[in-house]
């Protein structure tokens, strides 16, 4: 469904992405891992059309995103940025309705159908009870759910989530990732989610892609990607990986350098 082909991109002070290719199928959650600066956010900004790569292509259902108009692309790809700025003077319902923007013509007013889609997105993200509250007076977790509701209201087949759990407590992390998984299964869309917490990523993603130096260093199931060797190469830290006693998915525990030294002795 989503196909990233040989993307190359550099800012003024150096190359960030170096021929990155990856794929995400229908109903699949792909976790994007990698240290800070590995190009996760840059990749997302390219897929949403904010940046244009110097080489390579991004295809959704076989069509290149760079040949589309902005609003058509926004009907195919929705994104939840890491730190979304929410403006004053708008209610939660207003912001969720902004997700309908790519579906509306310049002079078109939101209709019954747009409301139904936005209301459904708010139900899914558990923000219905906040509908008439001003977005600026919500907590960080609530704001994040509102941004997710906006993205869901876009009804796009590809959903990108940049660090969706970074500001959330443990319960909220589980809740929001379960929700993403439910939506992904229900809509049969492709989901790309970048994460720092490797254990959480292994738990919720079908496949993982580990970025290093602007390229997909390792790719596959959580068991295949999350090995102590891969983690050491990508992050430069030693880690112990062991299976979750209940589910069997890998869990990652960092070992401090002193512990590593002690275990060698």
């Amino acid at each position, binding site marked *: 469904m989503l196909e990233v082909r040989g993307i190359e991109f550099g800012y003024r002070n150096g190359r960030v992405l170096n021929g990155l290719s990856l794929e995400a199928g229908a109903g699949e959650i792909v976790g994007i891992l990698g240290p800070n600066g590995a190009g996760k956010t840059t990749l997302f*900004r390219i897929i*949403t*059309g*904010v940046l244009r790569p110097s080489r390579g292509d991004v295809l959704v259902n076989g069509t290149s995103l760079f040949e589309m*108009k*902005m*609003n*058509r*692309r*926004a*009907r195919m*790809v*929705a*994104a939840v*940025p890491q730190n*979304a*700025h*929410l*403006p*004053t*003077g*708008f209610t939660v*319902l*207003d912001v969720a*309705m*902004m*997700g309908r*923007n*790519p579906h*509306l013509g*310049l*002079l078109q*007013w*939101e*209709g*019954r159908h*747009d*409301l139904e889609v*936005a*209301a*459904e997105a*708010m*139900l899914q993200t*558990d923000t*219905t*009870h906040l*509908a008439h509250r001003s977005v600026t007076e919500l907590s960080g977790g609530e704001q994040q759910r509102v941004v997710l509701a*906006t993205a869901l209201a*876009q009804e796009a087949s590809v959903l990108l989530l940049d660090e969706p759990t970074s500001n959330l407590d443990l319960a909220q992390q589980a809740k929001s990732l379960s929700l993403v998984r439910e939506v992904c299964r229900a809509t049969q869309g492709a989901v790309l989610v970048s994460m720092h917490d490797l254990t959480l990523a292994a738990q919720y993603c079908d496949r993982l892609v580990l970025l290093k130096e602007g390229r997909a260093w390792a790719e596959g199931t959580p068991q295949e990607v999350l090995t102590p060797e891969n983690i050491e190469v990508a992050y430069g830290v030693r880690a112990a990986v062991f299976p979750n006693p209940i589910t069997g998915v890998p869990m990652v525990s960092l070992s401090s350098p002193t512990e590593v030294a002690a275990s060698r002795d």
Partner: protein
Amino acid sequence: MVRLPFTKGLTPPWERFGLRRLSSPPEEAAKTLQVKAFPWRRLGIGLLVVVGAMLLAGSLGATPIPPFTAVEIVVSKIPGVDISQDWPASWDTILWKIRFPRIILAGLVGAALAVSGATYQGLFRNPLADPYLIGVASGAGLGAIIVLIAGVTTASAGFGILPMAAFVGAVIAVSVAYLVARRSDGLPLTTLILAGVAVSALCGAVGSLLMIRSDPDLRPVLTWLLGGFVSAQWRHSVFVLPYLIPGVLLLLAHGRVLNVMQLDEDRARQLGVNVERTKLLLIGAASLCTAAAVAFSGLIGFVGLVAPHVVRLLWGGDHRTLLPMAGLLGAAFLILADLTARTILSPTEIPVGIVTAFCGAPFFLYLLMRRRAKV
């Protein structure tokens, strides 16, 4: 909450068993959500306020005309309407030749400044932005000073040379700021504001130098700089309209897009907005409207700053309400300010810019104090 009329008196089943639902479940709450209605009623109120201001301004003055007669005189001007004239002919002249051209021009200028101001505030996401932010005012001022000092008096197409020069100066100043700020990958708005401030400073300096180094009668320029509608004529409105109508319509059409752009530029792109094209369109339209408005009326401050804020305080930040309502309130405000300017010290007139600043500046200080209290 949707309540069917025939269930009104019935106890819900769960309450009959002694259970009380504390809040309605989200599914029910979702059904009560409403599509935001088109703001017909607000627009109606705004229109009434404008008509009321026009009526007041039409009847008050050195020669008071009863409001009903004023309406009759205006209606009698509509082709095909025949009303027996039972008012002195001088009233007809006063209302139709003197007061009404002023009222209409003041209304148009007020609307143009307020809509442009609201657009700039939304686009730059800066509540302190006003229509003169990126160089319109000082460019127009410099244009006016240059023709006055050069002694050009030839009128073109029936208009004085001064408004023409002001219009051209305003367009040139904004274009320079735009070209300086523009980069290959887009238009950074912060750079545009800085470029506008720099261009304004330069135009102001050149203008002041020219005024000091030469000594023709500077009163026309000073009068123009302070702003006013003393010499307003019907054809001034006719000149302004070809810029205002398409410009204002274009701005009003972008209400929802401006809402989305409040998120930030990247988010707006992700939500399908062609950000660069929108910025260019809106800045161009707002600047042309302002330049046309400024050409005949001079530099009238605070309308473009205050009117959008009043609307925001009353009805919130949705640009689909904000833009049209700011236009209507701006029109009414400037009509009333002009009325005050010509009646308060009658028979002398004071520049309308003084009236707007007198009402606008304290209000703006109040807004700033509110902001400080919030932080």
